[in-house]
């Protein structure tokens, strides 16, 4: 299947679709590993005692951590991954094999810091879809709004994100 008017129309019918995911707990080890992976050295991400002296409950996640995690659970078995290695479900079954998927930018708003032990829920809404003429053929741009909240329902991060299908 290719990126064409038919795929665009299929995706277009899903505008407004909302999904809620329980992401579980953002653990200290996730925060420390993420900080390590991005090359951060700030002890606010590593040292609980230091973080507490700064007034936080525990180590603080680098700001874009929750938006960067691709899959929060174990993901599907290997044989159920797409050819490019990604789980079909992560794309909400929008992109058939052969359609390339890329991130097309993200606008993140950080409402409150996320500390180790915070339980996070994500509500995702497909907000828009466009069919554009790209340099190497048609591109479908799918926009999402994601809201991350804690167990008390307090807003942590909101983000709008574009996915490019080619």
């Amino acid at each position, binding site marked *: 299947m290719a990126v064409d008017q038919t795929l665009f129309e299929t995706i277009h019918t899903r505008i407004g679709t909302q999904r809620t995911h329980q992401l579980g707990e953002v653990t200290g080890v996730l925060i420390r590993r993420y900080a390590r992976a991005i*090359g951060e*050295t700030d*002890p606010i991400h590593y040292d609980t005692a230091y973080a507490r002296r700064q007034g936080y409950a525990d180590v603080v996640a680098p700001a874009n951590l929750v938006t960067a995690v691709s899959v929060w659970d174990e993901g599907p078995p290997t044989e159920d991954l797409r050819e490019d290695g990604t789980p079909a479900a992560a794309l909400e079954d929008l992109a058939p094999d052969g359609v390339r998927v890329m991130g097309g930018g993200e606008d993140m708003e950080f409402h409150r810091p996320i500390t180790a032990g915070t339980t996070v829920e994500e509500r995702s809404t497909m907000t828009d879809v466009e069919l554009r003429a790209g340099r190497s053929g048609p591109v479908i741009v799918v926009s999402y709004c994601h809201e991350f909240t804690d167990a008390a329902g307090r807003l942590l991060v909101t983000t709008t994100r574009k996915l490019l299908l080619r």
Partner: protein
Amino acid sequence: MSHRTSAVTSAVERHLRFGDVQVGDRLPELRRVPTRLQVYRYSAVTWNSHRIHFDPDYAAAEGYPDVLVQSHLHGAFLTSLCTGWIGSAGRLRRLAVSVRRFAVPGDVLTCGGEVVGTERSDDGLGLVHLDLQEIRESDDAVCAIASATVALPL
């Protein structure tokens, strides 16, 4: 803070204040050289199994010279640029990132930025608006651009 354990700790305990900042100020540059190992660990910790980030043969089949730096890793570098500059008293409020060109391991990426606006917020803080770029040293390609807002104590 009397307990300082390292030079790194001291550096991040710098308190940037709203009054210290003016439109036109440049942020200290942050240099990052992602390696295959870093890109691999970033995929691992985010449970991102896209082959484009760890399988050079797959990347070649898509026409790229090597595995690609994840768009969120570009975003993480720009996050570090902001949080490193503001220190522990400030907060990053907003970051809008647009990746313009792909980057591969070994690329020297220099993140920099400029203060483009300042305003007082309703909650008694100072808001500083920033334009940011991540530039590849070898050919001056702009790999990512971003705008950000940070909140600082007055």
